[in-house]
């Protein structure tokens, strides 16, 4: 594994909890590796298969989906939808020849800046350890 290998991670963060949690990491000046690019979504339940597969198709090394803790969803149960979809998506990934672990679902509240920074650090390290994608960098095309 090359030492200078820098994975690229796309993070879909829900507006109400996790995006604010990432803000909190900033406000608290907690550093984490610069590998993640955050896309704001209203709810973790908004993230669908097309978005996730698009990331991998483009060459993302990993995707993080984060939302409010169960029971705390701003829209009452959007995160449960996300959780259900997540299991299916991981299956889909392995079908496409991508390690399941490259997709992660996490609950981060608006107050959990520390959790967020740790999460990104760990996830980056984990993905760096996994190394570059072995499926020729791009998932099988076609939208789902």
């Amino acid at each position: 594994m090359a030492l200078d290998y820098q994975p690229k991670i796309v993070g879909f963060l829900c507006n109400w909890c996790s995006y604010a949690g990432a803000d909190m990491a900033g406000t608290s000046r907690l550093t984490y590796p610069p590998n993640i690019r955050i896309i704001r979504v209203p709810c973790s339940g908004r993230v669908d298969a097309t978005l996730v597969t698009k990331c991998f198709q483009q060459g993302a090394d990993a995707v993080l989906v984060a939302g409010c803790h169960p029971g705390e969803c701003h829209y009452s149960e959007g995160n449960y939808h996300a959780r259900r979809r997540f299991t299916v998506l991981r299956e889909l990934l392995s079908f496409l020849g991508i390690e399941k672990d490259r997709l992660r679902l996490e609950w981060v509240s608006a107050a959990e800046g520390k959790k967020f920074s740790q999460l990104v650090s760990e996830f980056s390290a984990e993905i760096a350890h996994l190394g570059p994608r072995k499926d020729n960098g791009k998932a099988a095309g076609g939208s789902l």
Partner: protein
Amino acid sequence: MARIGVFVCHCGSNIAGTVNIAQVMAAAQTMPLVTFVADNKYSCSEIGQTAIREAILKQKLERVVIAACSPQMHEATFRKTVAQAGLNPYLLEIANIREHCSWVHSNDKAAATKKAIELVKMAVAKVARHEALFTKEIGLTKKALVIGGGISGIQAALDMANAGYPVILVEREPTIGGRMAQLDKTFPTLDCSSCILTPKMVEVAQHPNITLLTYAEVKSVRGFVGNFEVEILQRARKVDASKCTSCGICWQKCPEKIPAEFNLGLGPRAAIYTPFPQAVPNIPSIDLAHCRYIKYQEFVARGEEGKKPPQCRICERLCPPQAIDWEQSDQVLVEKVGAIVVATGYQTFDHTRYGEFGAGRYPDVITGIQLERLLSASGPTEGEVVRPSDGTHPKTVVFVSCVGSRDERMGRAYCSNVCCMYMAKQAILLKEHDPEVQSYIFYIDIRAGGKGYEEFIRRAQEEARAIYLRGRISHIYQDGKKLIVRGEDSLLGRPVEIAADLVVLATGIEPSAGAKELAQSLNISYDAHGFMVEAHPKLRPVESRTEGIFLAGTAIAPNDIPGCVAQGSAAAVKALAVLSRPSLVSDPMVAIVDPLRCTGCFACQRACAFNAIDSQVTRDGKTIAVVNESLCKGCGLCVSACRGVAMNLKGFSQQQLLAEVNALWR
């Protein structure tokens, strides 16, 4: 093609100290559709905002990206800024290069700069696909509905009426007042319950802004915040309220007597009755299930042979103004309201489920509410506390806490919140009524968290000499005239047995009958017990998850009178915040269906937690989904549920999010 302007903020050194602003600006110049790039020391300052406004006008910018702090911080600010320059406020995107970049990557300036550039690139790609969005103004009915006329509902109705808005108060029983009307004195100050309640009840009846509908129930609710349509069933009293003078002759002379619900069976009432002397309104109702004339009519209608029951009609004959109206029938009223307050209150746990406490077999094992009636000067014994079995004065009284509370066996894990306090109150009152009374209070722990509550418990211990025993009762049985109560003094670790004259079960609080059904018809959430669920347990405690429907009192959870009154007022303020608006403004970031792509599978509808998706038939006969924009909250669940890619979310459309992803690799 749109002309995009990019503004990069230094935030003093907050951003500029880590991110190389010049490099970001240079990169932005090369991004597609970007026609103007500038930087600002402090974008949010007045100088910064003016600079942005001027650039929009001068450079004829059609879209704006501001690379600065988190949108949580200043999105609203900058939407206003661009709007002032004549741009649609939704044609703005913020790249968060502070919280998500400079502040977290201060240790690697090059990487931070690279990341900032990518964040700007994503924002540019997204903003290019923004559409102008327009808020809509929706009219509203400036009238409120309050369901339930206990102290919570009364308070809410009065506060709204006093603020100048019309209110309809619907109460199921023949009178308002709720459970508080049954209480004798109230903790922690021992004011007489009816002395503080009756004036409020009268105020409700006389308030020009309040329409009081008692003996009535809400049948159905349609619509949304500002525009609810409610069907109310007004049950027939068989008494013409416009004629009745409340003289009371009818209920004194009616020969049919049944146990009075208001006194929990401790005394009788007539078939034509008002629940208690200070009832509001003080118009009697005929209890159809027990009235002899009604039974007579039913007998005749059945055409049976045999001895006819008596016709009776004594009330009709004796009523001076001839107010009895046998023709009166149930009516359905339809009303339009803008906001609803649900205050349907509680009932107490049915203790007959406890076999070990005699399952209701022992007459001298009574409930807390029954003791309130016995203590009350206007109660069935005129304030004399006597044993139901033989009318003697009890000297040894045992209180049993947590009956139907904190008991998973009974499916009730929660604490009923008020019983610790009312047991103390009743011990004090018993002592006042009869100094020879010795009270024993079995408790698990004493929950007295309110203002002056702990002090009140001490009064029960010191002044009323109540003996507190820590332990739960296991068994009550009759031994002659005595009731043997077996518990443990868990502080000594020994079993305890007390031969009591009277046992008072502190039965827990549960939602009123029919609460779940009402919640269903209102489309608001309720928990496993039937308590209404708040939008947020801490921050939105009197709002339901459905906009425009508010909650108060014991309908939410067990609570005491101070809490109920506070919630009644809080719910009124929340409802007034809706009613007082000139019109309602809709959030334009809602879902939208592409009618050409929609297959009518309604996966979206199943995903939507807010009932915001209706069906509609197109001209060519296809049934497709349509979003009710006033109900939609913009969560986007429907979008991910829609396999046909017919559903989209304005402001977070599929194209926009994909553009952000793609931008990362361009």
